[in-house]
């Protein structure tokens, strides 16, 4: 089983801890994971803002970078959703515009092997107890793309429920968007901030010490909002919780 990590541009640049945690977790579970350096970004910011043509080289790059692997695992729900939901669209539109089947073929190769981390753990490795230890109260925010596009359902929860020492707190209005939405946060700043404030209030109301998601981009917006409000809740990516053990605790 040849497994590649697609770390994503946001994690690579701003949240390398998440990538390191993913590697540590997968290696602990006996998976030899590679990091092909030719990878970069899934193209989500460009595609979702209306620049479909700018995403095409990134689709080709994704296909090339991961060509020799059976599985591509990513600690990002929205980037996995970008590949699974939008790469076929990009391919179909290019073909419809008379530019041949090349992108559609790249998409067809990328889609079936791309897994969000919790899907890979539960569906491919068949584990829900990854031997993690995280002695804190945690609330979980299911990010929109993970929830609705990938249909992750209870996979992240099942993983969290098996973490030793962890107490899971219900988040009120959990399935409501946090208001990040990529460039939406800048283009519709007032609405985004209002949504973020409501999400932060919900998180604070749980009294949890940490809030976790499967997406650092949403967590950047949520964590930034919490910090500005002076809240003590710590934003943590799910991979970092799952990577922590009694021998090597979360730091």
């Amino acid at each position, binding site marked *: 089983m040849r497994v590649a990590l697609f770390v994503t*541009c946001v*994690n*690579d*640049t*701003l949240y*390398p*801890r998440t*990538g*390191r945690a993913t590697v540590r977790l997968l290696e602990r579970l006996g998976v030899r994971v*590679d*990091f*092909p*350096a030719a*990878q*970069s970004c899934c*193209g989500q*910011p*460009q*595609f*979702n*803002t*209306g*620049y479909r*043509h*700018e*995403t095409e*080289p*990134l689709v080709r*790059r994704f296909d090339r970078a991961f060509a020799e692997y059976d599985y591509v695992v990513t600690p990002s729900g929205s980037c996995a959703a970008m590949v699974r939901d939008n790469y076929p*669209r990009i391919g179909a539109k290019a073909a419809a515009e008379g530019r041949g089947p090349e992108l559609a073929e790249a998409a067809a190769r990328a889609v079936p092997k791309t897994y969000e981390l919790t899907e890979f753990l539960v569906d491919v490795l068949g584990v829900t107890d990854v031997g993690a230890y995280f002695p804190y109260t945690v609330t979980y925010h299911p990010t*929109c*793309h993970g929830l*609705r596009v990938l249909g992750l359902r209870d996979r992240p929860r099942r993983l969290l429920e098996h973490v030793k020492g962890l107490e899971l707190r219900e988040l009120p209005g959990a399935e*409501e*968007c946090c*208001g990040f*939405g*990529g*460039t*939406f*946060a*800048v*283009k*519709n*700043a*007032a*609405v*985004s*901030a*209002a*949504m*973020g*404030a409501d999400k932060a209030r919900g998180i604070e109301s749980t009294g949890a010490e940490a809030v976790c998601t499967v997406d650092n981009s949403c967590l*950047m*917006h949520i*964590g*930034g*909002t919490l*910090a*500005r409000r002076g809240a003590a809740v710590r934003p943590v990516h799910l991979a970092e919780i799952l990577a922590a053990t009694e021998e090597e605790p979360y730091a």
Partner: protein
Amino acid sequence: MSGTYLGMPAFPRAARDAVRDTTLRGNLRHATHTIRDKRARAVAELADWQELRAAGKAIKDRTLRHLDHYLVRLEEAVTAAGGTVHWAADAAEANAIVTYLVKATGESEVVKVKSMATQEIGLNEALEAEGIRAYETDLAELIVQLGEDRPSHILVPAIHRNRAEIRDIFDQEMGRWGRPAPEGLSDSPAELAEAARLHLREKFLRAKVGISGANFMVAETGTLVVVESEGNGRMCLTLPETLISVVGIEKVVPTWQDLEVFLQLLPRSSTAERMNPYTSTWTGTTDSDGPQNFHLVLLDNGRTDTLADEVGRQALRCIRCSACLNVCPVYERAGGHAYGSVYPGPIGAILSPQLRGTASEIDASLPYASSLCGACYEVCPVAIDIPEVLVHLRERVVQGGEVTRNGVKVTLRPAKGHAAERAAMRAARWALDHPGALRAGQRLASRTRRLHPKRLPGPGRAWTDTRTLPEVPEESFRDWWQRTRGGDR
């Protein structure tokens, strides 16, 4: 669409003002959460909801593919049943037809059944300009009309108003339009409803002309269908001598059997009812019963152009249930008025820029009035992939491309005001397609991390106004991997 919306500011500006209005946000939050919870329960009762939803989608898609055929069939059936069919290419034509028909009766007052199509074309204003007064008889539409306000929701046009505000509107304005509100009117729902009932009853009994829309038109028999909760629609549809129905061409369904699907999908999605309280159907005219003159005005107003777009056309499946509005986190904060159209919320954000084009500031901003969270798609009873159409329309705004306007294919230029963004996206794509450059940028950002400002200038200011920026780490993942694993394997 309605002239009252001309010159609306772009969505972000209108939404920013709405977000600051705490009464409005409170009213909206309470109302939308109540309806969305009830809807979820009503839908969960049906084990075959997803099959029904797929059936609704399939029927609408099939009908839209052969729309010309079903519309001709509908016209034949309506004509055979004693009605007259008029075709209106746009709002001006539809308004002119209706004005002519009302004038021909010699009347200067009409009663109206709540109708999105007549709102869309600004019929009330057009009639007013010709000396004809149109009375809205739906309770929420009445509140909007009396308050000289604009609707802010498809199903509950006065959703932005609370009981106290409605009491004040009735108290101050009813007298100017007819029977005044009773003395000492309180804000209890029962008293408010009774005041409206008394006010409206006079109008129903006096009116000689009724104007309606229709939720559905059945092609095989030429039957029009209105579903409603209050009974005012039935009054308007049966009491006047002349009935004029203005209906968008996409509302046709082939057969009664098809209608059955939508009569299940619509009430549960819109009002969370198992069955709507009043379903009125009418077919042409009947001797000595109901209106003796029936006119159907079939409205295009951008629909054929929308149909020409393979991705965007799914918006025409919409049955105006407003489930998407009630779950939309953006609608909940921004309110309906910010969308600058009678169609607010997620469906409005994809419908208005297609019906009206993307030339105006508000229309070009609507496809961005969403975080693409997908809640709208999840609840849509005819499975309109609203996020897909939003992104499709964003592409039209920033990159231009071929569209159909007035039946002719034209090439749109990219909208103004996106030049800097376009340059940034190109630069980002170049860097991302050259991992060496990406790595150099990451290293530069890491080396200068102590110098990064806490508050950003330009577009980034919107971020740092309410959010703390993440700190750039000392080492990117890429560099960590190379340092610890010795480069690529």
